[in-house]
């Protein structure tokens, strides 16, 4: 395979290593060495992760968390073109500027559909098990090439701009990763079982409506805690959905499952634990309030959760 997961880890590892190097060389940086160390550790986990003992990787992760948590990771200063130059360049390049940006989604979709079986010589182009990610990797490289060709900038400049965006998100980049780790630890420690125990034994589910409401709200709440609907579904479907809704009230399992998963997604819209959807975009869009995206989503998520309860109540026994 040419575009395998390991190749993508290598690319990201090199990007992060470059960020670390530039940070270390950035004399005007307010937290030069500790920031460089943070990005260097992250790069090492991508480049050398497969050769590390798990306990070492765990220790590196804790070290990164402490560096970020103690305010030792800061963005540097970045030389950008001033606004007049950017406007002039925008006027000169016009709509052609959109083309490289569209290369990423178009190549990703083509790769995952049309090109998925392409071989070059003996080698498959994409890793079948990670088709979308592999195609995204190819799309990102082609887009960088197209952008360099269009703007006559060097790929090195592209890496510098990449660092500017990584710096804009700063340590928030690693948050989805760390929360996923916590989710796995929760599973291993039996948090899911404990939640199911509490919801099913402490609450009365003696009316059809109460059971439906508890099921949908339970999905949302548990997703808010775990940050992931996929973690909530087995617990709440197993704890309330199957025994109570299907077993006691004769619900259609397909309706119970579909609307249950969507109730979990309402929770995803409202939780900082789903950092890659909620916290990272706030950082990426340079919003001062890290919870701004969640606040924008709550007026959609809450009415939708109520709609789910009503839909499930009326549709499950039709």
């Amino acid at each position, binding site marked *: 395979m040419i575009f395998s997961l390991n190749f993508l880890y290598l690319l*990201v590892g090199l990007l992060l290593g470059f960020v670390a190097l530039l940070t270390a060389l950035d004399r005007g940086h307010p937290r030069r060495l500790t920031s460089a160390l943070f990005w260097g550790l992250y790069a090492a*986990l991508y480049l050398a*992760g497969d050769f590390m003992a798990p306990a*070492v*990787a*765990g*220790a590196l992760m804790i070290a990164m968390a402490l560096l970020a948590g103690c305010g030792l990771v800061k963005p540097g200063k970045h030389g*950008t*073109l001033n*606004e007049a130059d*950017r406007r*002039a360049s925008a006027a000169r390049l016009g709509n052609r500027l959109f083309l490289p*940006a569209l290369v*990423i*989604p178009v190549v*990703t*979709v083509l790769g*995952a559909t049309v090109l998925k079986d392409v071989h070059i010589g003996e080698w498959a182009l994409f890793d079948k098990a990670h088709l*979308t*990610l592999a195609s*995204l*990797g190819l799309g*990102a490289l082609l*887009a960088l090439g197209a*952008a360099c060709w269009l*703007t006559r*900038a060097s790929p090195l*400049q592209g*890496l510098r701009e*990449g660092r500017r965006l*990584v710096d804009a*998100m700063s340590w928030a*980049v690693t948050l989805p*990763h*760390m929360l*996923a780790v*916590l989710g796995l*630890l929760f599973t*291993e420690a*039996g*948090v899911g079982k*404990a*939640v199911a*125990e509490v919801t099913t034994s402490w609450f009365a589910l003696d009316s059809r409506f109460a059971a439906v409401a508890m099921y949908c709200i339970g999905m949302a709440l548990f997703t808010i805690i775990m940050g992931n609907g996929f973690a909530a579904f087995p617990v709440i*479907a197993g704890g309330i959905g199957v025994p109570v809704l299907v077993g006691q009230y004769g619900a259609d399992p*397909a309706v119970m*499952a*579909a609307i249950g*998963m*969507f109730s979990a997604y309402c929770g*995803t819209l409202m939780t900082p634990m789903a950092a890659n*959807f909620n916290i*990272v975009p706030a950082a990426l*869009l340079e*919003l001062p309030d890290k919870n701004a*995206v969640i606040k*924008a989503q709550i007026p959609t998520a809450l009415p*939708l959760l109520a*709609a789910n309860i009503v*839909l499930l109540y009326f549709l499950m026994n039709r």
Partner: protein
Amino acid sequence: MHTAVNLWPLLGVAVIAAGFLLRANPVLVVVAACAVTGAAAAMPVMHVLESLGAAFLKTRNLPLVLLLPLAAIGLLERFGLKEHAMASIAKIRSATSGRLLIVYLFLREISAAAGLTSLGGQPSMVRPLIAPLAEGAAEARNGSISDALRYRIRAMAAATDNVGLFFGEDIFVAFGAIVLMQTILRAEGIEVDPIRMALWGIPTAVCAFVIHSWNLRRLDAAIRREGEGK
């Protein structure tokens, strides 16, 4: 009283809730929750460290979607991608931030429902194109906009991408969530046709579109109010 299930690991959940309520640094909250959960489940320190490390290495695929496009997007931004997007939308007289985002919501939801979830995304679409377009439409209407409103428009652009993705992808039959639901239900002894699960997601998907579009209309109203207030 004795229950067969150990309820102590819930302390880890309590740490997360307290941490976010106190607005502590999220990374520190995660580490504290890991420590408390490990202790509550009576796991030795080395074992916790090994679990964390193994999980961290296993989830390295998560940030790829975010990090891979950055070099190309950053380079285009340097040469005026945002400025060009804002100037382009200003030429369309009927464009408002809300209407533009409703169109994006529709396209995002439909394409995700067809399995094309990568036609969008926060780093590759929202930051370089959708957010500047939405901001540009508001600026073209009002002349200039306050920072508070600018941030609200950006946050709504990010929210629109999320809502479209979540409630579109789950009515695509081959999506992971459908496979997951089928697997879980099979383990419970229930056999369900994936197509029926996808179909029963449609009423919620329609509700999501209607409710979020209504919120986008409210965004337009807020932009209009600020424009008239000047």
